[in-house]
């Protein structure tokens, strides 16, 4: 019984002692960690950040300087030439060959029909013809000839009436874009 009492006393009356160096080691670690954090912070605000700011200023300066290496006259000359080439390319793509209408009329006009007026609007691919046909047969033949031509999209007879010379008429011819656009003709 006396042996048991002694063991209980050892367990409860004398608590386990912390090693003597443990709090000092904790204190040293805390001091080291705090100093390290402080060092990093001070390094950032006094060392790295000013270095980056300096680097930024230097890059800005270099970018400003590089813009000035080409003279204003050379720049203007270059931009004008470049603009001319770009614009010319676009304009040539849409260049109009209006004289092909004359060839079209010469190929497709009935011998018994003559025109005394022609109006062309290139942007609308439109031709209005005023003329005289010997007879209505000739006028119909003329319209059929225009309709069958591959360059035309539509033919409309606006008006027709018997006159001294034959049948006076006003006719609208709508072309496909290929007739007037020189880049599509080639």
């Amino acid at each position, binding site marked *: 019984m006396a042996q048991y009492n002694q063991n209980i006393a050892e367990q409860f009356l004398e608590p386990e002692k912390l090693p003597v160096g443990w709090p000092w080691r904790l204190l040293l670690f805390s001091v080291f960690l705090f100093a390290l954090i402080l060092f990093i912070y001070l390094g950032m605000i006094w060392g790295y950040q000013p270095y*980056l700011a300096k680097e930024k200023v230097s890059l800005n300066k270099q970018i400003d300087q590089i813009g000035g290496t*080409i003279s204003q006259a050379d720049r203007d*000359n270059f931009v004008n030439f470049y*603009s*001319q080439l770009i614009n*010319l390319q676009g*304009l040539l793509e849409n260049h109009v060959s*209006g004289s092909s209408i004359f060839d079209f009329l010469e190929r497709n006009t009935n011998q018994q029909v003559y025109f005394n*007026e022609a*109006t062309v609007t290139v942007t609308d691919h439109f031709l209005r013809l005023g003329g005289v046909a010997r007879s209505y047969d000739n006028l119909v033949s003329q319209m059929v000839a225009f309709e069958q031509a591959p360059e035309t999209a539509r033919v409309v007879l606006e008006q027709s009436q018997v006159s001294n010379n034959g049948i006076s008429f006003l006719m609208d011819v709508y072309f496909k874009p290929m007739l007037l656009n020189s880049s599509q003709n080639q």
Partner: protein
Amino acid sequence: MKATTKRILSIMVSAILLIAAVVVYVQFIKPEYSNIQNMRGEIAYQQSLLVNQSHAVSQVQNLIGQLQDQNVANFQNQISLVLPATESVPQALGQYQAIAQANGLTLQSANLNYLAVKPAASNSNLAKGAGTERFQLKVFGPYAAMKTFFQNLETNVRLTDLVSFKIIHSGAQPNQDLYTTDIVVDTYYQTQ
């Protein structure tokens, strides 16, 4: 001082230092690090901009060097005849008059309007648009000459686009080969 008091004190100081370290990290280092990251991003962008600009400038300098070459200068002059760098109205009108005269037509009238500048057909903001001069011409003469006049307009040195025309038979007799033509043409110049 008792040993236990020293221990408690050292543990408290340690705790305070650890908390202070966490506070410094959260309150100061983290925001500063964020600032630094932003600055590094800006610097990386500027460095790439500098590299790109240096590359572009060297290419432009190379091209400018080529422009000063005699052949390219001649080519540039030829381009300027097709699309002049100024409005050059007398040049355009002189050419129309010369074409009419060469084909035996009479230029009876000529009017000019300026249209809005056409923006350059390019994605580049660098290219400037082309200005348009719209001429209204009235010419008088025979059919064959009129046809050749139109063909010559199309192949004229200075780029000319036909907008519209109206041909009216103007002979006293139905079989008299004389016509009056109202022609609208556009010609272009390079804006500065």
